[in-house]
């Protein structure tokens, strides 16, 4: 279900945003657009297929915890 919704969303983004914008985008903008989209959708697809991605909050909590427990 999750994967189907994400794929449908990807299609919406490409059809209603990327294609109409394509001609007005510079090379730099196109590269940034595609790379960001690719990272975002890859992360969503991996999440949807139960691949455990590193939780950012866990990393931040450990880093902040270490930093403040050392200094105190």
């Amino acid at each position, binding site marked *: 279900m*999750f994967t189907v919704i994400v794929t449908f969303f990807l299609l919406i983004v490409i059809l209603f945003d990327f294609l109409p914008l394509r001609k007005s985008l510079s090379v*730099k*903008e196109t590269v940034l657009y*595609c790379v960001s989209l690719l990272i*975002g959708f890859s992360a969503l697809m991996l999440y949807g297929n139960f691949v455990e991605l590193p939780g950012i909050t866990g990393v931040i909590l450990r880093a902040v915890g270490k930093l403040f427990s050392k200094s105190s």
Partner: protein
Amino acid sequence: MPNMPKEAISASQAVCVLILFLFGSNALFNIDAHTAQDSWISLLFALIYALPVLMIYARLMKLFPEKDLFEIIKLLFGKVTGKVLVALMTWYALHLAALVLRNFSEFIRISVMFQTPQIVIMIIMMLLVVYMTKSGIETMGRWSIFMMPFILTISLLTVILSINKIDIGNIYPIMEHGLGTIAAHAFEFFSFPYAETVVFLCLAGCYKRKESPYKLYVYSALTGTAILLLVMLRNILLLGIPMGIADYFPSFTAVSILDIGGFLAHIEGSTATNLILAGIIKITVCLAAATKGMASLFGIQNYKNIVFPLAVLTIALGFVIYRSTLEMINFLDLYPYYAIPFQLAIPILVWVVGEIKVRKMRKKETKEISS
């Protein structure tokens, strides 16, 4: 490549944006578990802490009128250091957008739409945010000014309607936690939501030169605090402390128990709408700031072209960010420490360097005029 036309936002629009930004996700959680019934005193302490910092943000806007934080950083620190600082602020704006999006999607999923997949809630919210960001900061300002009376009226109405249900005993004993604990935990309210307004500096280039940025920050901080205080007191007095702390979203629960003569009941939907509307403004400000930061990093003229892919990144980050609702609540305790570099260190550094450079420039100008 043609330059983008300059966007402009009036003082009243900016005040409304900032008030809704402050109200945003803070009204969701509201009661601090450490200070319990003294949370409202903690909130007032936080306002006292926040005012000097907000004045620093305002000073930056005054020193560099019609320039956003990214332009100021690049101007003061040059290419390399400037890009590092811009990247840090962009990350913070993107992370904050993801945090708020996740908070609100959790709220909707837990409180109202139990069966709907969270991804659907996130996508629908994000489509609105993307539409608003792409429409420009002026549209966001006009939308805020239009929504403000509704949000204020609903908040005040729920406070008035709760008068016959409140138990004044819930607020006692006052100062049970001691001044030290209350003052220490006020730092949590300081960083969430007051100092989060640093993100607004990333859009400050749209603020009109003739309007005072000091008034902007003072008016919005005072009004925002007044609304948050009313909501907090309503929640404490209606729910009491054990329930207020145990509940993930006390504002929603507090309003759900209101019942006026049997004919006006279950008005929690209006509060949910209220919170979501304010939350959408907060996510829009964060996403617009992140997009502007990204555009500044990669030298892109029109930031609106890359709004959608960054919105997708925000949704992905929103999922990866926490593994559970419990982790989300735990993160709130450590959030103030994590946010220090973005809310305090970078703005203070930019302010100090900005003051020095502006003074040097003025001295140089006066020397040139006199010679």
